[in-house]
C-alpha cells in the first residue's frame, strides 16, 4: 500500500538533472579513473573505482529503501489564533526492521501556515518505531487551514543522492482573529478607537449603555469626552463607565464587500480582530452575553464563556460577501458597529 518514493524533485529536465548532480559527478570521476587505469594498468585504481561504484549503488539504493518504509502523519490544533505561534504534531513512523538515519521532513509550510523552522531533521529513527515531533507554526491567515502534504527526504548515508517522498496529510485547523485583551478592554471602556494607528474600527456606543456623566477633569483622556453632550453643554462632559454589569451587548460587523475598497482585505481582518477582542472582554471580564451579527452572514450569540469557542469559530469563518446576498443593517441592539464606513449618528 505504500507508494513508490519520487526520486527527484523538479518538473523540468534541468532540475531533475541537478538532483542527480553529485551522482553524475561521482560517475564522471569513476569514468576518468577508469580511463586512466586502462592506460597505465594500475591495480589500485581499479580498487578505488570499485569503491566508488559501490558507494554510488548504496547512495541510490539506501535512501529509496529508507523512504519506502517510512510514513508520516500530521495533526494541527483544532482552533488556533492568527499570527500567534501554535504547535503541530508530526508523527513519523519507521516500518522497517532497520533503523533509518538522517531523514528530513520538509516543505511543511503551506498557504496560510508558516512553520518555524520549515523543516525537521531526524538524526536517527530506530527500527519499527514512531517519533512524534512538535513543530511550531504560525497561522498567517484566518479561516480554514489545511496541511495537504509534506515531504520526507533522505540522502543517507553521504548525501550523494537524495530521494524524496511526498505524503498527503489530512491536518486541518481553524484560525480565528487575534484576540487582544487590552485592546478589548480599551474598546469597551472608552468607546473609541483602542489603537489610533490601526484600521479604524468605527463603532458606536449606544446611549443606553451604562455609564455616568461628569465634568472634565485634567488627566481625562480625550476619548472619554462625550462630544455631543459637550456641544450641547458648552463645556467638556466626560462619560465614565460606572462598571455596572452589562447583561447583553450587540456587536455588528460590516462584511459587505462593497463597502471595502479593493485590496483592503487586511482592513477587514483588523476590524475582526477588534471585534473579537471586544467580545472577549465583554464575555470574560464583564460576564456579559454578546450577540455578534453581520451585514451579510447569520449571527451568533454567546451567552457564557463556555460557548466562546463558537464565537471564535464564527469569527474564523466569516468572509466578505459580495453579489446578491441579502444585506442587513445594524439593528437597534448593535451596541458596537465595526465598519469601514464613516461614523454615523449614534442611535438612541
Amino acid at each position: 500500500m505504500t507508494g513508490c518514493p519520487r526520486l527527484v524533485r523538479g518538473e523540468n529536465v534541468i532540475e531533475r538533472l541537478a538532483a542527480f548532480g553529485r551522482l553524475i559527478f561521482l560517475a564522471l570521476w569513476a569514468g576518468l579513473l577508469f580511463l586512466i587505469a586502462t592506460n597505465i594498468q594500475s591495480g589500485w585504481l581499479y580498487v578505488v573505482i570499485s569503491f566508488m561504484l559501490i558507494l554510488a549503488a548504496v547512495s541510490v539504493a539506501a535512501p529509496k529503501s529508507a523512504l519506502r518504509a517510512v510514513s508520516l502523519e500530521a495533526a494541527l490544533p483544532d482552533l488556533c489564533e492568527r499570527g500567534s505561534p501554535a504547535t503541530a504534531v508530526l508523527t513519523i513512523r519507521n516500518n522497517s526492521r532497520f533503523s533509518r538515519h538522517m531523514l528530513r521532513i520538509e516543505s511543511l509550510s503551506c498557504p496560510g501556515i508558516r512553520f518555524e523552522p520549515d523543516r525537521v531533521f531526524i538524526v536517527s529513527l530506530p527500527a519499527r518505531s514512531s517519533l512524534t515531533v512538535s513543530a511550531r507554526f504560525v497561522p498567517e491567515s484566518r479561516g480554514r487551514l489545511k496541511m495537504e502534504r509534506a515531504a520526507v527526504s533522505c540522502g543517507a548515508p553521504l548525501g550523494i543522492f537524495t530521494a524524496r517522498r511526498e505524503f498527503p496529510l489530512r491536518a486541518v485547523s481553524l484560525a480565528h482573529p487575534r484576540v487582544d485583551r487590552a485592546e478589548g478592554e480599551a474598546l469597551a471602556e472608552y468607546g473609541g478607537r483602542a489603537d489610533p494607528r490601526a484600521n479604524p474600527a468605527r463603532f458606536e456606543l449606544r446611549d443606553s449603555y451604562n455609564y455616568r456623566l461628569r465634568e472634565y477633569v485634567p488627566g481625562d483622556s480625550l476619548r472619554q469626552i462625550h462630544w455631543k453632550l459637550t456641544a450641547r453643554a458648552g463645556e467638556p462632559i466626560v462619560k465614565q463607565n460606572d462598571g455596572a454589569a452589562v447583561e447583553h451587548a450587540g456587536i455588528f460587523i460590516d462584511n459587505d464587500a462593497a463597502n471595502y475598497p479593493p485590496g483592503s482585505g487586511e482592513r477587514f481582518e483588523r476590524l475582526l480582530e477588534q471585534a473579537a477582542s471586544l467580545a472577549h472582554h465583554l464575555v470574560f471580564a464583564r460576564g456579559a452575553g454578546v450577540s455578534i451579527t453581520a451585514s451579510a452572514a447569520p449571527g451568533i450569540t454567546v451567552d457564557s464563556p463556555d460557548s466562546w469557542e463558537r464565537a471564535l469559530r464564527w469569527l474564523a469563518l466569516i468572509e466578505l460577501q459580495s453579489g446578491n446576498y441579502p444585506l442587513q443593517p445594524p439593528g437597534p441592539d448593535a451596541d458596537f458597529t465595526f465598519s469601514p464606513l464613516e461614523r454615523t449618528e449614534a442611535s438612541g
Partner: protein
Amino acid sequence: MSAARGVFSALNSPYRRPEEVEHNVPLRAFTWLAVVLSLCVAARDTGLMSPLALGLSAVSAGYVFSHFRRMYSNWWMKIALAAGMVAAGFIYVNQMLFTQRDHIVVLTEMMIFLQALHSFDLPRRKDLIYSLLSAFMLMCVGGVLSRSLDFGIYLAVFILLALAMLAIFHYRETSERALIIGNPRSIAAVVARLAIALAVCFPLFFPLIPRYRTYAFANLPVSGRLREAAQKFSGQLMYPDPPSAAVGIDAGFGPDAQVGSDFSAERYLAGGDAYFGFVPELDLNSRARLSDKLLMRVKSPSAVYHRGLVFDTFKNNLWMISDAEGEQLTRKEASPVFRLDRSGDTEYQSAFIGASLTYHTYYLERDMPNIIYAPYRPDTLYFPVGFIFMDDNLAMRVPAVLLEGTIYTAISTTPSIDPETLRKVAFPPCPDVDEKYCSIGFMTPKMRALALEITAGSTSVLDKVEAIAAYLENNYEYDIDAPPAPPGAHPVHHFLFESKRGYCEHFASAMALLARAAGVPSRLVTGFVPGAYNPLTGYFEVRGTDAHAWVEIYFPIVGWLTFDPTPSGPSGPVFAEEVTPMSFLYDRYFKGIAEGALAGAARLFYSAAIAPAWISAALSALAVALCAGAFFLISARRSRRSGRFPLPPNNRSVASDYLRLLRARPELRNAPRSASATDLSVFIAPDARDSWLELAALYNRAVFSPLPLDDRDAATARSLAATLKARAQRM
C-alpha cells in the same frame, strides 16, 4: 594612530556571507587528517620528502588559520594565494617542458603545493569538499605509483576518514535551518554500516570491472638515467655483488670485470644466493640455494616468461653464448626508446599467427645483473641508458648494473597459435636455420639414439617436441637436491641415463639436446617464470626462487616458441595468457573442481575469466543489475504490511479485522489513489467515511505503534468492521 586603526580594520573586514561559514570542528579535523594522509602517501612513492615536510606544516597551519579566521574576508590572503597558484602553475609548466623529471613527480609536487595554499582559505563547507577532492587525487597518484599491498592500509584509513567527513558534511547540510531531533553521535553508526557494506561488496565488484588495455599514453614508464660503467663495455655481463674474494680468484664479475675471467660454479656456491644461470657459461653441475627475496615487480597483461640469457652452444659440458658481445644499439638522444626491429626478419609474421604487442614494465626491487629481462620477442624497449647490446638470440645487456629502483618497459610481440595449426608445420627445418641450433657434436651416441627412439613415428615438429617432453615428464623426477654428475662426466647423459633426477636446467638441457638430435633447432634460455600475481596491485612479483631455465624451439615459418619441460611447467608451447583478477580467482579456487553442479559454475566462471573484456563488462553490469533487483525486491517485500511480524493479541485482532474487510471490498483495495497515499486518504463513500477512518487509524496503531492496544480498541475495531461490512452488503 587612526591610519593604523584603518589598516587593521581593513585587514579584519568581516566575511560577506556569514551564514555560509562552517563552524563544525570535527568536520575540519577529519578533512585535515585525510589531507595529511594523502600528502604522505603521494610523497612516499615519489620521493618528495622536502615538499612533504613543507606541505604538512603549511597544511596544518592553513587549517588552523582558516578555522580561526573564518569569519573574516581575508582578502589580503586570497590575493597572496592567487599569486602563489600562478607561480605554482608557471613552475609546473617549466618543469614539464624543460626538465627530465618524471611528469608524475612534477605533478605531485605541484598538487602538494596547491593543497598547502588552498588550506589557508577554507571558510565554507564546500571549500572543505574541494580540499577532500584534492586529497583524493593525491591518493590516486599514490595508488598509481604504489606497487605493494601496504597502500591498501592507507587507502582503508583514507576511506574511513573520507566517509566520516562526508557523513558530517551531509549532516550539516541537511540539518541547516531545521529543527534537529536526535543525537548527532549516531552518525558514527551510519559510517560503520557503510564501511561494512563497502568491505562486503568489494570482493564482488572488484573482479567484475573489465580490464581494458589501451596504452594510449605517449611515454611508458622508465626511471631516470642509469650511470653507465666507466670501463669499455662490449656486452659482457656485470654483477652487483662480486663473488667472495676468499675463493681465491681476483678478477670477479663486478662492474670492472672483463669477459673471460676465470669463473667457476664454486664461486656461486660460496657467493650466496645468486643464480648460476646468469653467467656466460652455464655449468649444470653448479648448485645454489635461491632465496625468496623479491627481485622485481612486473606490470604485465599476461603471465610471460622473462628471458635473461640465451645459450645456443653446448660444448665441453657447458652451455655457452656464441655471440657473447652482441650488436650495439643506440637511441635518439632525448628519448629513452630503443627500436629493436630487425629488417628482413619474418618471425611471427604469418597470417595464421595471432601475434599481438604486449607491454611489460619492470620495477627492480634489488640490484640485478646488467641483463634486460623481457618476454620473447622484444620489439621496443624503454630503457634509461644511452646504448644497449643485443645478441643473435635477441638477449639484451646494458652497460650498467641495474640498481634497485630501475624501471624500464619492454614491448614484445607475443604469438598465439592453435596447436593443431602448429602441428601442420613442415619438417625438417634444420638446413634453413643457423647450424649452431642443430649442433649435436657434444652429445653421446646413446643420447642421439634415445632422441631418435623417442621421436620415431612423429612427423611434425610439434609432435617430436611433445614426445620428448612427455618422455621427460614420465621418466624423470624433479629434485632440487639432485647430486651433480661426476667430474668429467657429461651432465646431460648422467641425468638421462644414471641419476634420472634433476631440476629445471637438467630438464631444459635434455630437451634442447634431444630435440637437436631429432633434427629440431633449439636453444636454452635462463630467466624468470612469471612470478606470483597480486590481484590488488596488478603486478607480478618475481622472486629469487622464480629463476628458471626452459627451451625455445624453432618452427619453420612461425619462429621460436617457448617450451617448459620441467614437470611443473605447462605442457605444449607456452603462450602468454591474459591474467585478470577474475581469472586469478578462477585458477585459485575453481579450477580444481571436477564434478557436479559446481563444475558447471566453474566452467561459467572460467568462460568469463578468459572472455574478451566486453563480455566481462556485460557480466559485471548484469551482476550489478541482479544485485540491485534482489535488493529492491527484498526491501519491497519487507515494506509491505503483511503482518508477519509478531503482534500482541489485540493488535493482531484489529489488523485481521481490517485486512479481512479490505479483502472483501476490492473497490477499496483497488481504489484510485496517488502513488504515495496512505489508507487514511483513500476515497470512500461519505456516509461510511468516519467509520472507515476510525478503523484505518486503529489499524495503523495496531500494526505500527510500539504500544499494544487494549480490549476496548479491539472491540471498537470489530464493531466498525461489522458496520462497514453490513453497509456494503446493503448497497
